């Protein structure tokens, strides 16, 4: 996949907001359009960056990397997000440029700009996922077969990183439950485990001797968490296919948990009876828990969690906002953790 540096993107290549919205048939929903425009106007004034922050910045050059035609076709028909929580938030969208240039994806390197700068060799076609464990339909599936029966929809979610920054991202994808049910998990499947691709040829971070992650990166959810309607698999953002640095070709999005739970570039799905050992717990169990629910009251040893920096920031107009329990999705997910001590199961 060819990813150009942001400097290479000519203004003429940037999809105008109107085009982006038309494509998603946003015009159907005039109330949201007006809200969106108002938010865009406001943020434009605050940031003063090239007019507005809400403009879809999905550059033509990214789409020019020519996704396979079957995938491109899927993106012509995307169901817009409903206009209310939890699948949509009226908060200002984080600009495309920041979502795609400020990433934690250690397979490509440790710095925030490494994933966007070092992922140009990354290949997402062909792509397949191996399904293993407690499921009737285990086996290897091509991405095309996985996506074929699924309708793409948009979800505008908050993304809260454990490092105390956050973004608002317009994802394109489908509910995780719709995918998992097709593999017919058995009654023994109490947990689902995911793995990220490890490819030393195209992922320079995995060959670093000092990276102490035991590749492949692993994450997991309890089955009832995975089946929650909020849990989502993204294949795109801002109306176009997912760039490598954001976890192409498909990644998990669990908005009520810290960002590291939302595993990228998935190649394996494993249904299991026991709780999987996830990468961060493996590295530092005293700091990272299996649940990793966003919780302002449970401080991480490294970062305070009671506030967050909403990106993008400028030094003198900082958006330093209160972090909410379950990242503001308590109504949808709090019941999953009833009776659990969240300080113990962090």
């Amino acid at each position, binding site marked *: 996949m060819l990813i150009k540096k942001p400097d290479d993107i000519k203004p003429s290549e940037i999809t105008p907001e109107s085009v982006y919205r038309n494509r998603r048939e946003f015009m159907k929903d005039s109330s949201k359009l007006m809200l969106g425009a108002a938010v865009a106007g406001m943020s434009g004034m605050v940031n003063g960056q090239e007019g507005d922050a809400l403009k879809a910045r999905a550059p033509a050059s990214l789409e020019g990397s020519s996704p396979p035609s079957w995938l491109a076709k899927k993106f012509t028909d995307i169901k817009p997000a409903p206009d209310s929580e939890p699948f949509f938030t009226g908060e200002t969208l984080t600009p495309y440029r920041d979502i795609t240039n400020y990433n934690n994806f250690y397979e490509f390197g440790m710095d925030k700009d490494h994933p966007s700068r070092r992922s140009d060799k990354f290949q997402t076609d062909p792509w397949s996922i191996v399904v293993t464990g407690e499921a009737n339909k285990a086996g290897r599936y091509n991405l095309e077969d996985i996506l074929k029966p699924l309708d793409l929809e948009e979800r505008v979610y908050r993304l809260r990183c454990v490092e105390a920054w956050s973004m608002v991202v317009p994802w394109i994808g489908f509910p995780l439950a719709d995918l998992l049910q097709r593999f017919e998990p058995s009654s023994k499947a109490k947990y689902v485990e995911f793995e990220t691709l490890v490819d030393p040829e195209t992922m320079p971070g995995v060959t670093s001797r000092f990276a102490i992650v035991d590749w492949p990166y692993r994450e997991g959810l309890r089955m009832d968490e995975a089946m929650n309607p909020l849990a989502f698999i993204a294949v795109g953002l801002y109306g176009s296919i997912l760039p490598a640095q954001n976890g192409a070709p498909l990644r998990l999005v669990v908005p009520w948990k810290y960002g590291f739970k939302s595993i990228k570039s998935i190649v394996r799905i494993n249904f299991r009876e026991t709780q999987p050992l996830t990468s961060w717990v493996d590295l530092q169990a005293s700091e990272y828990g299996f649940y990793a629910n966003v919780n302002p009251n449970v401080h991480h040893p*490294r970062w305070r969690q009671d506030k967050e920096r909403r990106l993008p920031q400028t*030094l003198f107009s900082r958006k*330093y906002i209160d972090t909410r329990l379950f990242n503001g999705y308590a109504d949808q997910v709090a019941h999953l953790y009833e009776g659990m001590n969240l300080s113990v199961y962090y």
Partner: protein
Amino acid sequence: MSVGPLCTAVFVPITGMGSLFKPAVFFVVLLPFGLLVLRVLQNSLGPDPAQELAIETGEWTLRLLLITLCMTPLRQLTGRLEFVRVRRMVGLFALFYASVHFLVWISFLLSFRWFAIAEELVERPYITVGFAAYLILIALGVTSPLAMVRKLGRNWKRLHRLVYLAAILAVIHLLWILRTNISEAVIYGAILAILLGYRLASYVGKQNRTAR
């Protein structure tokens, strides 16, 4: 190694190219700060500028501390006095970058929430360690004028040996905050180990000579 010759060396007038060395070093170590100010003005620190500023100023503090610790060995190995003449200045620059680092942390990262700042200092070991290193640098900075050197006499040298502790704490501070790839801390730690090892070796060598 006694304080005397090194201190008097500072007063020997320098002529020729040597006189340009100190101003040159001054501008070189100020340059990273200048570039950061430029990036602030251009708004080109990325979407999370506070974090970026904290990272950059912290790294430059550690680099300058290590450079300060290189000066004495460089003088001993090359015999050139210029190195010791800039030692205090580079050390003070380390304090300067540490102060900016600290200010970025309490202002841009914690918005002057004093209770939160106090909590951070107590509850997070990497912050406690970093703050301890900063307090040491302040003590060394305050006692760096020649008047203080004279006033403290032998104690001055004892006090200023704390710079080794400050450098060790600074490396631990970095090691603790890195999430997985510890290569940076390993490199800085290795340089520090060499610099401390050099001093240990010359100390042991001197003990042996006096014993004989």
